[in-house]
């Protein structure tokens, strides 16, 4: 019944992915890598890459994770349970749209959550960096990718694909 555990995990992770798709990364890493050991940190990084090069939301990376662990049914369940929380919460919230949007509690709590997300992502970046930046060329690719994304308007998809080509040439 490991697969039910996986679906439940995907469901509540997406329920708490508040403040943008990247928030999912610390939550996923905690459960999928550290807790259940379904993926290694390296495979987790590959799943982020796949989520990022595919058109559509980053959260689609759950499909890869599901496929990797449980095959086709894992993938299908992952997509269903990734978006079920959204469907439930958004349809309910849309009935109370004005109250919801103008609520000071919602605004103030987001003011707390957004900076926390930065801290959480920084912690994730460090553990992932330890797994994937192993020598000089990988360090160069990471800093180069960072610089391109910060200082130019190149899309992340192309940076990831470019890094793949660089990896093929360097190793």
């Amino acid at each position, binding site marked *: 019944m490991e697969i039910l555990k996986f679906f439940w995990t995907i469901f509540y992770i997406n329920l708490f992915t508040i403040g943008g798709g990247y928030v999912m990364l610390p939550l996923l890493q905690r459960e999928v890598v550290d807790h259940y050991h379904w993926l290694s940190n*390296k495979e987790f990084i590959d799943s982020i890459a796949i989520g990022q090069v595919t058109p559509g939301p980053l959260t689609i990376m759950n499909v890869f994770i599901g496929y990797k662990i449980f095959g086709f049914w894992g993938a299908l369940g992952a997509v269903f349970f990734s978006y079920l929380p959204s469907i439930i919460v958004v349809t309910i919230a849309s009935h109370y749209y004005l109250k919801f949007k103008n609520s000071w509690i919602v605004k103030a709590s987001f003011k707390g959550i957004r900076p926390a997300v930065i801290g959480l992502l920084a912690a994730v970046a460090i553990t992932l960096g330890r797994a994937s*930046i192993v020598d000089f060329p990988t360090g160069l690719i990471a800093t180069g990718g960072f610089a391109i994304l910060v200082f130019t308007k190149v899309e992340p998809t192309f940076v990831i694909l470019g890094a793949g080509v660089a990896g093929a040439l360097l190793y």
Partner: protein
Amino acid sequence: MLAFFERELVTKKKWLTHEEFAESIVMGQLTPGAPIVNTGIFIGYRLNRLRGALATVAGQVLPSFVIVLILSFLYIKYKEIALLKAVLKGIGAAVVGLIASVIYSMSGKLLKEYKSILIAIGAFLCLGVFKLNPIGLIVVAGIAGVFMFRGEHRNGNP
């Protein structure tokens, strides 16, 4: 992607007004999950209730689902090949650079006063050093926000 949405839905099909479209974006950001999907669900629900919501999710997710499925299949089949290993090594490093760039751009926008900086550092230490549960941390950060920023929003301030 949002610009594309707007052109199709507001300008061409006239299903929504510009104000309604802006509302949908706010809604997408304030609800859990991928903001772009939630914006779509909000629009779909408004146009055609639950059927509309389900249809937008299916429409948004199905193409990526198929692509990810194909990539996953290829990944598992060819993972041990040296060339793919090299490609993944490069990509793995870039993913870290990508996350760093997200942190950088979010910090520039959000870390403007000491309270936010304090929350960010606190969250970093709680996860990075003390290994606390990030879901709990998000909940705590939300509650902390309610207390810390109460004065700024409570009395009808925007």
